[in-house]
């Protein structure tokens, strides 16, 4: 049985120092407290910062605990998520002409946290706070594919057949999820509602964990090209918005 991992021990000590100091600390103070060379300590705090567990003030270069620690026990609050994603969700709807959905894992369903109407003036109903099936929507499948720990195993889902295209067998669903992982994007080609399409990408918080899915929705023929792949212009905007929101989730509030 090997002994404790030294760098993990040192990382834990740095977090305790930052938590107990009552003020932001300089690299030199951390190095002195640990009695280690500065480059060694710098390597550790830089890694912790990249994981969102430590935050560095731009102006003073001082270190403090990062926002990732506050959400460690509870995960992201869904209304904090909506608040952070809202501007980019609006921009995505404006840029693609699609409706936008933000969904989080909620037991055996995808909980819709935010919904932006398709900006075409047509009458629409707000779906915020409704539940969508995990296996039959783009955002649901995105959560299954990229957040396997926070969602049920596919074999435990009730694979209700909503349309002729729904992944209603375990084999079909597993194939869809593999394709989503390969593409970095889940799709719905009229699987929940006939003719209604969707595409979704994962939103990742500090450390790369998937906390939500960001999706766009439009008629299948508008969203997908001949080969059944999402049209590049819309897919690229969806990916870009996903990256921007993910970047906001990795920073301190």
């Amino acid at each position, binding site marked *: 049985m090997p002994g404790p991992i030294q760098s993990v021990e040192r990382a834990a000590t740095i977090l305790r120092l930052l938590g107990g100091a009552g003020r932001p600390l300089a690299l030199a103070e951390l190095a002195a407290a640990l009695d280690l060379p500065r480059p060694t300590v710098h390597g550790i705090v830089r890694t912790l910062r990249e994981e969102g567990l430590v935050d560095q003030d731009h102006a003073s270069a001082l270190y403090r605990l990062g926002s990732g620690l*506050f959400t460690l026990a509870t995960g992201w*609050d*869904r*209304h*904090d998520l*909506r*608040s952070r994603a*809202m*501007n980019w969700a*609006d*921009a995505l*709807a*404006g*840029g693609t002409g699609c409706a936008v959905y933000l969904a989080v894992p909620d037991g055996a369903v995808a909980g819709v946290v*935010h*919904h*932006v*109407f398709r*900006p*075409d*003036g047509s009458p*629409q109903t*707000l779906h*915020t*706070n409704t539940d969508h099936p995990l296996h039959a929507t783009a955002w649901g499948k995105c959560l299954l594919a990229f957040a396997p720990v926070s969602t049920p195993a596919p074999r435990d889902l009730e694979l209700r057949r909503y349309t002729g295209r729904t992944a209603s067998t375990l084999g079909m669903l597993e194939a869809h999820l593999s394709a989503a992982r390969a593409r970095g994007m889940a799709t719905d080609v009229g699987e929940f509602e006939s003719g209604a399409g969707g595409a979704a990408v994962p939103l990742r918080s500090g450390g790369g964990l998937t906390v939500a899915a960001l999706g766009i929705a439009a008629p299948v023929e508008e969203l997908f090209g001949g080969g059944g792949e999402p049209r590049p212009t819309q897919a690229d905007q969806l990916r870009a918005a996903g990256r921007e929101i993910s970047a906001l989730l990795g920073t301190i*509030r």
Partner: protein
Amino acid sequence: MSTSERVVAAIDQGTTSTRCLLFSRSGRMLAVAQREHRQHYPEPGRVEHDAEEIWRNVARVVPEALKRAGLGPENIVALGIANQRETTVIWNRHTGVPLARAITWQDTRTGPIVAGLVADGLTDLYSETSGFNPATYFAGPRLRWLLDHVPGAREGAEAGDVLFGTIESWLIWRLTRGVHVTDVTNASRTMLMDLRTLEWSPRLLEALDVPERMLPEIRSNAEVYGVCADVLPGVPVAGALGDQQAALVGQTCFAPGEVKCTYGTGAFLLKNTGPRIAGSAQGLIPTVGYLVGTEPVYALEGSIAMTGSLVQWFRDSLGMIDTAPQIETLAMTVPDNGGCYVVPAFSGLYAPHWRPGARGVIVGLTSYITRGHLARAVLEATAWQTREVVEAMNAESGIPVTRLKVDGGMTADHLLMQSVADVLDVPVERPLGSEAVSLGAAYVAGLAVGHWSDLEVLRANWHRAAMWRPDMASAVRERERENWARAVERSYDWVR
């Protein structure tokens, strides 16, 4: 992005920060840059800004926004300004240096000056000419305070060496290196302008003893005031609006009866009243909505002092939540308010009650009440106060509000927006992009240079991003309205 891109730049000079936003012809935001400025609190009740710091921030955020969009000054067809209203600056015409810090709209030092106007029996003169009764809220008394207290201010003003302006005047003067103008919406908040003629009123100037030669020329909201000599050399400065009027334009409330509400720290409802100047009953304020062309469009304004700031209090002073959005999470732990009501009369009650002696109350507490019920009651307080202002507006004109366009940070709160729809019993709509203030400034500037042909073209840029439909039984609404009214009564006359 192609370098032939033609965009409009907007400066949103707000209470806490200065931002520059770039908008495409379809009204899409392309880039934003922001800088905060210091708040100075020299004494209780006094809040000041350094006008020079604000100018420096403008000079920084504009190039930052251009850089983010990958554009240069040659891509900007016009620059528009939306600003915090009623904040007062005086500066030296020759050196461009402010004589004192700007006195902001939250500052209440002019109480004795306003009381003096009332004691002199000038209330009717002001309400008939400027549209409202004297109050510390407006810029005119602040200018008088500066003339009385800043060494050299009065002599300089009388000699023509010292100039007055609200923030848009100050920024236009610096951008153009010497064009001294204001716009009708900002001028309508000085308490010095005749709301009918849209000119400085000699009688109101005399009553406050303000030398006319220090005042800027009053202009429409959409015209080329001058060309930038600094920051964006060669770009026309072509529009300015007070922030709330800017949101009215950004929300395209161009027809009489259309209403917008901006939910921020406080909330501001503005209703388009067309060519008609509304009465100022129940503490609502008639104001200029906008002047594009030659015919002014008036608006009726009602404000709510505490909306977002009540949530901040709930977060920072009570420590009930870690972030403002989490109030919705907490409120959703319970199905209703459990009989609990919060009346946030922290510094008295404004429109439509006007009870300065009121103080905040929490009523209906029982052992059943949890933090979740309090969170609900905090959000519902904003909804009921919105209804009170809307009811006062309906009573004033007889034309009821049939839908409410909303913007501002609190529109991210789904539960609150549903509550507003429920208690108003009208649909509540949020447009795509919550930057109505900046968009309004961009619109007037773009209109002035022909980038957009007319107001109606802009309507096509307004896209519904969300709509909350009323979903509350009328019996429940009536019961809750009555409970809220009883809670409000309990806040009255606490301060003796």
